[in-house]
């Protein structure tokens, strides 16, 4: 049969390609980087359900290099390089890595960047399960440094805890801080359903919401978890119970648009009956239109804030990477947290004058002790190298020109990963944990 013939052909190609890569990897494994050049890897999702966040994450990381390390943008596209960046006289060389939000692809891409290209420091990945895989991989590469992009699974730093893995953006539960209280005290919700993608990051986000909402007397009447890669979310939306005060949506990218569209088409009111997870509060969902006006959600970045630290970041970023429409890059947590991650790397390198000797121990110590003044507030790491962050409740608004934008309606300072002891290394969030 034709198809089987094709598959056999592919099989052979795959084996050949695999062998070629193995030979290449072995050939390069002994190569060392020159003393003066520092090799940086930046990894994000360019395919799969979160492909839309590629432009955001890459532009955030590169803007930090341009702003703080004297780099020059080679173009405004997400994969255009940055040249001429240096720290304390050490030129910086950048390599990009692309994944599809799956842990195996993230691991393979990290291995390529670290063992094949030979990067010293890797910034990334973007998605939750990927982060757990990379933190585990970091343990096998103790002489390299891994700085998280935006992956937000709680386990990554609370139970995997690789000594050379640093997370300056916090985890998905921290990004929900304030939202459970907002639901129970401001919206007076008592009975809520959760609808999300079925993997570690949405579970972590749910945990952050539950951690506040349930002790305040709220009830979670149903949790609906849908596998990543589902195209049609109509039946997921149909499962939302009719007797709830509202639901919490924990999706990203394409899935967010699919759910919001379906819910609004059925006559549901997104602004009054839905709260958004942090990836839901992203400009990539604006294609849904005016029905989003009034929708609130948790975010680690003060979207739409008038605070000067935030507005100067936004105007600086848009000066280098002009976004169309305006605000579509800066209005994303992925841009903001990749920017923070790269800023931390540059600050750490400056503190040790670019010295990565001694298995990068001085550099890693510098990172651990860093106090980073970021556009989203002051960031400091805890003993597990996970940041204590300021979190925000943000809301989608219609701006004066009729387009959609954000405003920050609440600020929650000093959010630590354990929620003051509510979470611990053995209480990993899952489909039905924590209970409510």
């Amino acid at each position: 049969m034709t198809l089987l013939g094709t598959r056999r052909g592919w099989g052979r190609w795959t084996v050949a390609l695999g062998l070629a890569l193995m030979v290449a990897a072995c050939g390069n494994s002994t190569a060392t980087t020159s003393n003066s050049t520092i090799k940086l890897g930046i990894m994000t999702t360019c395919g799969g359900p979160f492909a839309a966040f590629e432009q955001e994450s890459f532009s955030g990381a590169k803007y930090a290099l341009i702003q703080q390390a004297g780099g020059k943008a080679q173009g405004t596209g997400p994969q255009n390089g940055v040249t001429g960046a240096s720290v304390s006289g050490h030129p910086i060389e950048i390599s990009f890595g692309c994944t599809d939000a799956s842990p195996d692809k993230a691991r393979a891409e990290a291995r390529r960047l670290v063992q094949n290209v030979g990067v010293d420091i890797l910034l990334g990945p973007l998605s939750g399960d990927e982060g757990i895989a990379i933190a585990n991989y970091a343990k096998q590469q103790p002489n390299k440094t891994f700085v998280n992009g935006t992956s937000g699974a709680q386990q990554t730093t609370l139970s995997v805890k690789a000594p050379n893995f640093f997370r300056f953006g916090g985890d998905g539960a921290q990004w929900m801080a304030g939202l459970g209280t907002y639901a129970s005290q401001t919206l007076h919700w008592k009975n809520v359903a959760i609808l999300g993608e079925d993997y570690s990051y949405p579970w972590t986000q749910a945990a952050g919401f539950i951690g506040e909402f349930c002790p305040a007397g709220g009830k979670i009447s149903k949790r609906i978890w849908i596998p990543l890669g589902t195209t049609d979310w109509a039946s997921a939306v149909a499962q939302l119970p009719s007797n709830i005060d509202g639901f919490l949506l924990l999706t990203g990218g394409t899935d967010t648009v699919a759910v919001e569209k379906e819910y609004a088409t059925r006559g549901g009111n997104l602004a009054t009956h839905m709260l958004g997870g942090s990836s839901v509060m992203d400009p990539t969902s604006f294609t849904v239109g005016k029905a989003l006006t009034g929708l609130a959600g948790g975010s680690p970045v003060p979207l739409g804030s008038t605070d000067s630290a935030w507005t100067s970041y936004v105007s600086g970023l848009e000066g280098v990477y002009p976004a169309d429409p305006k605000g579509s890059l800066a209005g994303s947590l992925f841009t903001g947290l990749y920017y923070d991650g790269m800023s931390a790397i540059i600050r750490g390198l400056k503190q040790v004058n670019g010295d990565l000797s001694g298995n990068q121990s001085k550099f890693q110590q510098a990172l651990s002790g860093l106090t980073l003044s970021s556009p989203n507030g002051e960031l400091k790491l805890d003993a597990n190298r996970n940041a204590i962050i300021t979190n925000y409740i943000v809301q989608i608004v219609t701006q004066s020109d009729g387009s959609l934008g954000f405003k920050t309606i609440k600020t929650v300072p000093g959010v630590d990963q354990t929620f003051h002891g509510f979470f611990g290394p053995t209480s990993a969030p899952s489909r039905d944990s924590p209970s409510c």
Partner: protein
Amino acid sequence: MLALALVWVLGRAVGLFGASANLSLFIVVTLNGLTLAGLYFIVASGFTLIFGLMRVVNMAHGSLYLLGGYIGLRLVEHRVNYWLALVLAALAIGVVGLLMQQLFLRWNQGQDLRQALITIAISVLLADQMIPTFGAAAVAIKAPDGLSGALRFGLYDIRYPTFRLVVLGLAVLIGVSLWYGIQHTRFGMIIRAGVDDRSMTSALGINVQAVFAVTFFIGALLAGLGGVLGGTMIALAPGQDASFLLSSLVVVIVGGMGSLAGALVGALALGLVAQLSGVYLPAGYTNFSILLTFALLVFVLAVRPTGLFGRR
């Protein structure tokens, strides 16, 4: 096995097996399955038409779907009437398909593997070019006025998106037209003859090249049509080219390569299994719903290796 699954789903819908009765959920989810099947049928019927006659596994079929959707989106954004945009986008994709066949596939006639590889190359190129042109974020096409809301059934207070029902109606219309065209017209007779014995048809003096060209045009056109409808019903995003190619493959492998009735049954099976399993698998196992569609594939291939309506 099918009977058991049916008993399980119906049982849970009326409140047996530890579930609370929820007939409105059952009706909505079944409708979701049927409307999704309608979309799958429109896309897969083009795929099966091309394969049945020309033995070309068009691996760029999903890319044609996505490109059609994006063209429709741009037209609607430029205030072109929705239905006109639908027709124009479908015709444009028909022409793209025709060019693809004339430029790349015609001179490789009969070389199945080479043709499949060429279409894979085209799909990769199209996918990469669509990201910078149309962006990587998910976008949705606005449904025409009057069809963008939901319909009240007056039954269990169900509100159902009107446009999904329109897609189902169009799928029926397209299915009937294709069936009539293939069974009752001279062109359809030539296609059927070509499916049965290509060289004999050619030997009878029929211009097989022209028939191939028209068939490829129609097959691609259906992909483009599906893209605009799918972009309105769900959304458009990078990666959907691969997922709709995969569902087209599953549909025609289950139904039988080259058979229109097979595409219908395959689409219904895939649509219903995908939607019902996500809701009615026992709690804690719903994440296996995606696997179940492939279990369906394996089951059909094990029992009937040529698919339900396939011929050897």
